[in-house]
């Protein structure tokens, strides 16, 4: 925060200086002065052009919508593309392996790619760039980033190869109207969730108490959300040993099976988030467990029948713990990029207070800056109910990684995803998890050994 005070002083000095000089200065000089904040020259790399590779979604939408502002500020031209999540991850890996990636900035899904990019050292360390006062604007206010966001962005060896962009905690959307009709309050514990789901389910009228993903791969965070309530991670963060056949893991899978098999609409074994969202938005579902970023379509009258009826609840207390499975994204620069400085200016702009505020206001993401949640103007411009914001803040405060920090995350999700789909389809949880653990153990061992 000390830096913040210095910034104000320098900015004031610059304002006075620029004001006096501006009267006499030539237009070109004036142009440069407008690109400076607090003595910082954003135009240092004007004329360069950078390629930005983003994951398709609301975060990319916000960045691309305001891209021109970055070019006006810095004189750096931006060529950006937004690629669907799965394809983006594959494209990134293939390009990094080619040795010369075609982009200078990219978004990284921490919950899937963190260990992979960290182990391969594909990204530039942000720490030296952050420490360079010639490259980092004084008003960037790095200490404003939350501890959780910085923890995600930092690798095990201390390198920070991304800047925190977004945190996505899981929570429960609930239909207030259906709860009120049954005289129910939102459940406080896992046990009460089952009881409420049972009371809300009326299969004859097509009403169900619960919905969550069941499709393989996509279903793993649902299971880990319940596992965290048992204070158990799927992989021990210290020993990197699988904990997927522990009594807690099996109990979580059984619990998942109970909810999806008995109180969810038929066919959830093939549901991803989009089918779940469609079902919930039709007003016949009591509760939906998923990421917090789905509020905008639920509150959009053109897409939803539950506008104004949605409650936003923090994950209830589990048998041993209360946690929200959390996922997130960072933004980084390939170590092989020849335009690191220009790319770093983009990363700085993308994670600036202004852009973070815009991201929060859009409801498409939860920025990792503390100021986004305290700034009155930002909150006043929020398009979603305040209840959503409160839920987001509380969920973040009890956040815990929803997926293990290992390299073969996708394989983990696939192998256990198949077992979980079978489980919610009626198979025995212990048998399925044992089978999946046996199949995945050699993959993990090989990955850790290499």
């Amino acid at each position, binding site marked *: 925060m000390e830096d913040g005070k210095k910034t104000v002083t320098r900015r004031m000095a610059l304002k006075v200086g620029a004001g006096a000089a501006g009267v006499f200065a030539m237009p070109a000089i004036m142009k440069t002065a407008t690109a400076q904040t607090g003595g910082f020259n954003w135009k240092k790399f004007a004329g360069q052009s950078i390629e930005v590779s983003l994951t398709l979604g609301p975060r990319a939408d916000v960045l691309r919508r305001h891209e021109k502002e970055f070019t006006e500020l810095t004189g750096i031209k931006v060529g950006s593309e937004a690629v669907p999540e*799965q394809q983006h991850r*594959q494209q990134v*890996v*293939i390009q990094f*392996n080619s040795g010369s990636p075609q982009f200078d900035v990219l978004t990284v899904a921490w919950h899937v790619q963190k260990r*992979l990019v960290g*182990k*391969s050292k594909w990204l530039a360390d942000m720490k030296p760039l952050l420490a360079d006062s010639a490259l980092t604007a004084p008003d960037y206010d790095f200490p404003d980033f939350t501890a959780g966001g910085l923890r995600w962005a930092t690798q095990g060896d201390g390198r920070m190869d991304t800047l925190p962009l977004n945190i996505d905690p899981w929570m429960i959307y609930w239909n207030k109207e259906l709860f009120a009709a049954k005289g129910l309050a939102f459940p406080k514990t896992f046990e009460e969730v089952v009881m409420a789901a049972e009371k809300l389910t009326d299969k004859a009228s*097509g009403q169900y108490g619960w919905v969550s993903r*069941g*499709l*393989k*791969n996509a279903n793993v965070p649902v299971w880990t959300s319940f596992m965290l309530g048992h204070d158990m991670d799927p992989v021990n963060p210290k020993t990197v040993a699988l904990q997927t056949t522990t009594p807690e893991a099996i109990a979580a899978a059984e619990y998942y099976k109970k909810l999806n098999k008995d109180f969810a*609409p*038929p*066919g*959830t*074994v*093939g*549901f991803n988030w989009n*089918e779940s969202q*469609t*079902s919930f938005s*039709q007003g*016949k579902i009591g509760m939906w467990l998923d990421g917090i970023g789905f509020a905008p379509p639920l509150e959009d009258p053109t897409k939803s029948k539950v506008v104004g009826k949605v409650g936003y609840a923090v994950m209830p207390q589990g048998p041993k713990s209360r946690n929200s499975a959390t996922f997130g994204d960072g933004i980084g620069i390939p170590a092989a990029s020849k335009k690191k400085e220009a790319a770093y200016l983009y990363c700085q702009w993308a994670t600036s207070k202004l852009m973070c505020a815009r991201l929060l206001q859009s409801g498409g993401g939860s920025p990792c800056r503390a100021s986004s949640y305290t700034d009155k103007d930002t909150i006043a411009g929020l398009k979603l109910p305040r209840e959503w914001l409160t839920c987001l803040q509380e969920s973040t405060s009890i956040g815990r990684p929803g997926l293990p920090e290992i*390299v*073969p995350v*996708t*394989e983990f999700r*696939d192998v256990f995803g*198949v077992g979980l*789909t*079978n489980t919610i*389809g009626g198979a025995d949880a212990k048998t399925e998890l044992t089978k999946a653990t046996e199949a995945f153990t050699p993959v993990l061992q090989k990955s850790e050994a*290499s």
Partner: protein
Amino acid sequence: MTQAALGEKTSSADAVTAQKPGFNRNYLPFAYPALAITAAVIVFPWLFTIYMSFYDWKIGQAREFVGFANFTKLATDARFIESIGHTLYFTALAVILPVIFGTIAALLFNERFPLRGLFRAIFILPMMATPVAVALVWTMMFHPQLGVLNYLLSLVGIPPQLWVYSPATVIPSLVAVEVWHWTPLVMLIVLGGLASVPVEPYESAKIDGASAWQMFRHITLPLIMPFILVAIVIRMIDALKAFDTIFVITSGGPGTASETINIYLYLQAFSFYNIGYASAVTIVFFILIIVLTLVLLYLRQKAKWT
């Protein structure tokens, strides 16, 4: 150049011509660019795939030569074996049904009736749609609670179905999309065959008192059989390598219920980055396609001889 030299050259050229009519070695350089492109885009990728199949190679990790280990692992890989079963099941349905419906449609459109051209144009519309767009539309239609298919069933008193959301019905449901999409192609091929059928055999058959069914069974069907077999070969290759529809609608799920070899191959190569193992899958898959195609081509030749 002397007359003797010219004479020598002419005689050597004559010798070549005598060996292979129409072949002249002097023209070979003209084929080099095409040969180079073929080698670069077809031969090299294949050789490289074969090379990679002998390695344990995961992107981001060191390569290790493992000989035939990838192939022996495939033989015991339950998920791969299961995917072969799914592929054959899907292919069988996705070939037989469009061929039956396409042939019936061709027979229908071969008859003269009002607005035939308009109906034929409408019938072939699905074929022009992009597979991914088709798959996305069908995904919405299959939704068990909100999809239009269950709504239509409810109108006639049939209970809602789970379609692609149940392991039991996922493959037939995916085949329904293929049938809708590709029956027009079969219809066009068979219709072309029907246009080439002579009218004389029918006149003779009518004089002999043959029924419509007998004329179809003993005249039309044998004459259009080579065309039907061409349609079967094209459909079979298409169905075997079907990817976009399955990937977009189910990604191989629920669980692994619709995981075909192609989906499994994609997972290994681009989700798990097991390049060596995926290369082995590619080679086995290619052999399977070649064998099935050869069988069908043999049947086609046999039909011609008959």
